[in-house]
């Protein structure tokens, strides 16, 4: 589904990704583990096409299509979703209005207001989001945890093929992580894939992890199964720095 080959990326003069390779198959769950500042978020943003980053060499393919030629919204319409580490506040645009606009843009079909509202309310209730938040402005005045839950709400409403989750569980209390984890598990199935950046194994509780990757200094230095997650939480990243 997602194929990244030997990717080099700069932001300004600074090289952030240095020869990154990653292959995610249909229905797979991948976990990326790595210290702060190693370039994990950059990777997510580059897949989504953030204009700040420049690809100096390498390739990104999604379902066989070269992503680098596509604009961000075209990538989203192909079925890629990014759950932001720090979701933007957008005054004046309600959650419901934005999500309906987004869903229409992705599906190319007009969506009936009332039917959409019903669907939205149902998902909000599963994520234990107060229904009033549908008519609040996007992330404005939301707590950190509310913003993250709102990202998962968007994931479930837009139902993409590939979810990129950038520390969606960070800053959340135990109950909130449980809700977010349940939401991601609901999204994941044999067709839908996830790439999850996390420092915390709890979000993975309900997910069958296929691959885990240790990410250091702009590249993946070790890949393995789910067991890597517990190795890292026990020993940290120091053992892998030698390998890199």
């Amino acid at each position, binding site marked *: 589904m997602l194929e990244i080959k030997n990717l080099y990326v700069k932001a300004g003069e600074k090289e952030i990704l240095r020869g990154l390779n990653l292959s995610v198959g249909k229905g797979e769950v991948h976990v990326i583990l790595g210290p702060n500042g190693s370039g994990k978020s950059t990777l997510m943003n580059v897949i989504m096409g953030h204009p700040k980053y420049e690809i100096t060499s390498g390739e990104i393919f999604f379902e066989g299509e070269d992503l680098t030629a596509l604009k961000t*919204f075209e990538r989203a319409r192909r079925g890629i979703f990014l759950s932001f580490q720090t979701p933007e506040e*957008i005054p004046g645009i309600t959650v419901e209005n934005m999500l309906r606009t987004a869903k229409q843009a992705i599906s190319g079909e007009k969506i009936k207001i009332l039917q959409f509202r019903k669907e939205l309310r149902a998902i909000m209730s599963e994520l234990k989001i107060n229904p009033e938040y549908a008519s609040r402005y996007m992330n404005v005045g939301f707590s950190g945890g509310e913003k993250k839950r709102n990202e998962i709400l968007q994931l479930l409403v*837009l139902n993409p093929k590939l979810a990129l989750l950038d520390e969606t569980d960070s800053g959340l209390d135990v109950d909130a992580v449980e809700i977010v984890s349940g939401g991601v598990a609901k999204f994941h199935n044999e067709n839908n894939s996830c790439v999850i950046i996390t420092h915390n194994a709890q979000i993975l509780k309900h997910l069958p992890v296929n691959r885990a990757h240790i990410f250091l200094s702009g590249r993946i230095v070790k890949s393995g199964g789910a067991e890597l997650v517990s190795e890292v939480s026990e020993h940290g990243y120091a053992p892998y720095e030698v390998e890199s």
Partner: protein
Amino acid sequence: MKKNYIQDIERALYDVRDEDKSIYKSDAGLTEEIIRDISARKKDPPWMLEFRLKSLEVYKKIELPIWGPDISELNMNEIVTYVKPNAKQVNDWSQVPEEIKKTFDRLGIPDAEKKSLAGVGAQYDSEVVYHSIKKRLTDQGVVYTDMETALVEHEDIVREYFMTLVPPKDHKFAALHGAVWSGGSFVYVPAGVDVKIPLQSYFRLNAAGAGQFEHTLIIVEPGAKLHFIEGCSAPRYNVTNLHAGCVELFVKEGARLRYSTIENWSRNMMNLNTKRALVEKNALVEWVSGSFGSHVSMLYPCSVLHGEGARCEFTGVTFAGKGQNLDTGAIVIHAAAKTSANINTRTISKSGGAATYRSAVKVTKNAPFAKCSVNCESLMLDDKSRSDTLPVMDIEGDEADIGHEAKIGRISEEAVFYLMARGISEEEARAMIVRGFVEPIAKELPLEYAVEMNNLINLELEGQL
């Protein structure tokens, strides 16, 4: 590089000009003779002629303001101060002359009336050509008429209030207004009457190089309620037009008045309008003000919170495009205890336009426990445009609670990316952000104007990386 721009306001609708068929035009420039001539033609009572002449004297003595936008291109000697259209006032739309009717039809005025308005006044150049008010309201004692008729039928009331709140000596254009005023609306709501549906007035300036000096006088007696909507437009000419209207609102004890204005004058218009409200004990004035058109605007509706517990809510949006310098804002004078005010504005500038937010809040010694909160936000859509915020506060009263928040910014590229990451195209993302920026204001506008404003925010994308 990516280039984005928001389209200019669609002016075609307003720019269709009619052939100038007026039966009478005064000489350009301002002399005592002209004033006497205007007054005679309007059949003013003697005191009004005297008022005009005194205003003229004041006008001659006062200099043009030396602050704010440059208005030096305005040559008062070239302004035809009075243009009388070739129509008598009627109260049946079918009797309005065809051309004038077509103009208003294009602007959707009678339709708007049919749909939702209790009364409509339409002013074409200097005279009101059409006026109607629902019978139910007249039965309750509500008066809604043009100023000339009011001067005949309600002379005492007009004489008691006329230009007492905005005296001619206030500034040069107030003096000019006092001398040459013509047309406008008069509304009187008796005590305790709740006018549930809005009254609407529409002003249109058709002749080239003319001035419009309509006077709006609204008196809302104790405990009464009114929503008044005023819309303005003019076609485009190459000569400068002047609008120096005057609005005086008297909101008595416990009364409520909502005054909504959308100004979409053409780009040759100098809009130098003076609006003021006197708000008595526990009364409320709500201003909703949209400024989109004109070449230069200087507009700062003023609320004098005169009675204890008087309140003011000001909501404004200004949109300055190419060649426009729109200097808008609000004035609040806290003159009694426990008065409160909320000022909430949004300004947008694009394509080299300049938008200035200018406000003055004064809390007098007589106004302990005053509360005032000001929130003004500006959005510049490109590097050529400018935006300034000039809030002035002068607090003398004790225990005042004053809050001020000002933001000047650009469209957040991170917000654009966020929306695009949800599948929304770049141009739509930008439009959404701009619409979101003005949303708190748009939701206060009368529906047809809110729709019009949304249409203005229509983005186009040029070039790509």
